[in-house]
């Protein structure tokens, strides 16, 4: 390649439903973004995602200066990719939202299986909440309902916007919400009204679960996969009586946030632990075994690359991880307070 290398920052967010990768340039602008399904195979999703990313970048010669990982599979991703920073998704989302709207005060985030509410003041997170006992109202449920109604998920929002009077759907529990929707269909309520009614129910549930005693003020950013749904945006605006902003890259904000966190490390060229785009060709094996050290019988996960153990984790006592001190050192910066 003749062209001189462009400095880029790789951010990756591997969640329960989607795996997102972004490359940011030195000014934190998105050069390439990938949103794909995890399909229960995080390592494959990362490898495929990396290949796609390389294709998107075509012949631009990117020198990855630093890598950040987030999402529920952040530790796994961090190990196989050689991440320089591994952060929880709450912080990553807050960082990304602050980048898009520097004075953001409220972040609404709804992903595949979780939802978060982040309150910021003067660019600092002051409070947050994350759903704990219930996943009604997250992306997976909308996915399921769109399939059941025969409406592609991409069009779910435009259906909702056609509604004049949303149906009242019982949204406390997603199973009962479905029963209620079926009932509304059977009594002849228009499909648009049911779809928009569902959006209202989900928003109600979100605010009751996460928004209690929280001061929600503008600017409000709505992000995560579900933010693609215009019906949800409108339902939030109705419920909060505030303007809600959906950023362009709303579905990869976690990845953007982790790339920014990687950028903030200010690493010099060559300092990154990044294993290179070649990692997509390596063969990773994961296996689990029960530790018999005590009656906790913890399930230990072992990741091997080319027959060599890369990392182990999963125990309560930490004895398996301790043997991977070298890997742990590589993950310096990981979840720093």
């Amino acid at each position, binding site marked *: 390649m003749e062209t001189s290398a462009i400095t880029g920052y790789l951010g990756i967010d591997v969640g329960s439903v989607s795996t997102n990768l972004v490359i940011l340039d030195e000014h934190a602008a998105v050069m390439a973004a990938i949103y794909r399904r995890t399909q229960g195979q995080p390592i494959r999703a990362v490898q495929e995602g990396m290949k796609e990313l390389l294709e998107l970048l075509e012949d631009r010669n990117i020198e990855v200066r630093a890598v950040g990982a987030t999402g529920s599979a952040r530790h796994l991703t961090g190990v196989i990719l050689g991440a320089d920073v591994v952060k929880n998704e709450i912080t990553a989302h807050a960082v990304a939202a602050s980048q898009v709207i520097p004075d953001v005060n409220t972040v609404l985030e709804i992903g595949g299986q979780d939802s978060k509410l982040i309150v910021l003041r003067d660019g600092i997170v002051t409070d947050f909440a994350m759903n704990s006992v219930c996943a009604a109202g997250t992306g997976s449920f909308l996915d399921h309902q769109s399939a059941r109604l025969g409406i592609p998920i991409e069009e779910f929002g435009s259906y909702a916007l056609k509604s004049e009077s949303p149906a009242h759907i019982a949204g406390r529990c997603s199973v009962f919400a479905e029963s209620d929707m079926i009932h509304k269909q059977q009594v002849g309520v228009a499909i648009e009204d049911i779809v928009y009614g569902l959006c209202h129910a989900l928003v109600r549930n979100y605010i009751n679960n996460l928004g209690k005693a929280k001061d929600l003020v503008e600017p409000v950013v709505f992000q995560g996969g579900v933010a693609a749904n215009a019906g949800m945006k409108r339902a939030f605006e109705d419920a909060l009586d505030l303007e809600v902003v959906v950023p362009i890259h709303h579905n990869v904000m976690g990845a953007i946030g982790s790339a920014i966190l990687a950028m903030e490390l200010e690493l010099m060229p060559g300092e990154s632990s990044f294993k290179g785009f070649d990692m997509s060709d390596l063969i990773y094996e994961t296996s689990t075994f029960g530790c018999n050290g005590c009656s906790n019988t913890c399930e230990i996960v072992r990741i091997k690359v080319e027959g060599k153990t890369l990392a182990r984790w999963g125990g309560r006592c930490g004895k398996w991880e301790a043997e991977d*001190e070298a890997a742990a*050192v590589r993950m310096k910066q990981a979840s720093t307070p």
Partner: protein
Amino acid sequence: MKISAPHMGHLHLMLADLFQRMGVEYVKPPPTTTKTLQIGAKVSPEFACLPLKINLGNFIEALEAGADSLVMAGGHGPCRFGYYGIVEDRILRDLGYEFDFYMLEPFNDGAWKFYKLFESLSPGLSIRSLWKILKVSFSKGRAFDRLYKRALQIRACEINRGDTSRALKKAEAVLTAAYSPNEIEEAAAESMAILEAVERDPDRQVLKVGIVGEFYLLLEPFSNFGLEEFLGHMGVYLERSVWVTDWIAPNRNNIIYGYPKKLVKQKAAPYLNHNVGGEGQETVGSVVLFAERGFDGVIQLLPFGCMPENIATSILPKVQQYHDIPVLTLAFDEQSGRAGVITRVEAFLDLLSARRMKRNAGVAAPLEPAAAAMSERM
């Protein structure tokens, strides 16, 4: 007679000492593990809180290890705990176990009743000798608590991860071996010296976090996924509002915690001025105290469905607002997953250190022990 009682943190160390002095054989239940919880949850009512489920698991494992008598603490007030002993007795009998059951009601509920219970365990025990035994045993308990309290502070600055926990084990063994009042006094000093010898980084910037909430969740590390040790390894200095001996002591001077119950209640009064059972009122008061002492944040732990703590939770947003202190509330039950807890705690620490950085404008955020947490974060 082979007597046993449920686990609650390092309570078993005190019980072993107490029963030895009384001449009663003590059967320490096998350590609480996931299996213990599974056994307990299986035989418990679904809506009972986590402590009952773990208690029952401990009891069943103790009975299977040969115990023939069980002791359980009683109590009264709006919290369900006071009734748990009775429920546990009934459930175990329905399962077909045979044993003698002893409910230990608080001393303040009647000194004679209190004495008679001990006398029934150890016939012929005089009030005078019981008093002496309790006094010595309790002083040993205090020494254990002091060790554990200090460990929460030292761990934040340890240079080699795990040194504090290892030193604590050694210190614990030294103290366990002490018997006479003189020996206990010497062992207390010696064990503390072992702990103090842990190599530390005195310049490390550490976050200060207070732990408040329901007593069992605070005292039993199994029930909160070893949260304190995890936080310590992340470089967080901890203080906690509930300690075993403070909780047992009838006077409630909270010698270990350092703030008498009366003061804690006073601090809570502007927000909650009456007892709501359990530690509800103390939780509110302790958050105020930690805020006044300049702590960076507070973590509240409670069993899912705990009424007194839920009352406190609903009041805490006001306390947070007036005292400008962040509070993270974590509820636990047998369905809880460690990953979810860790994600929230990590995000909370990020929040605290960002606040600290802003306040100190330019002073670096707390350092994290270099290779820390890789294992812990899983």
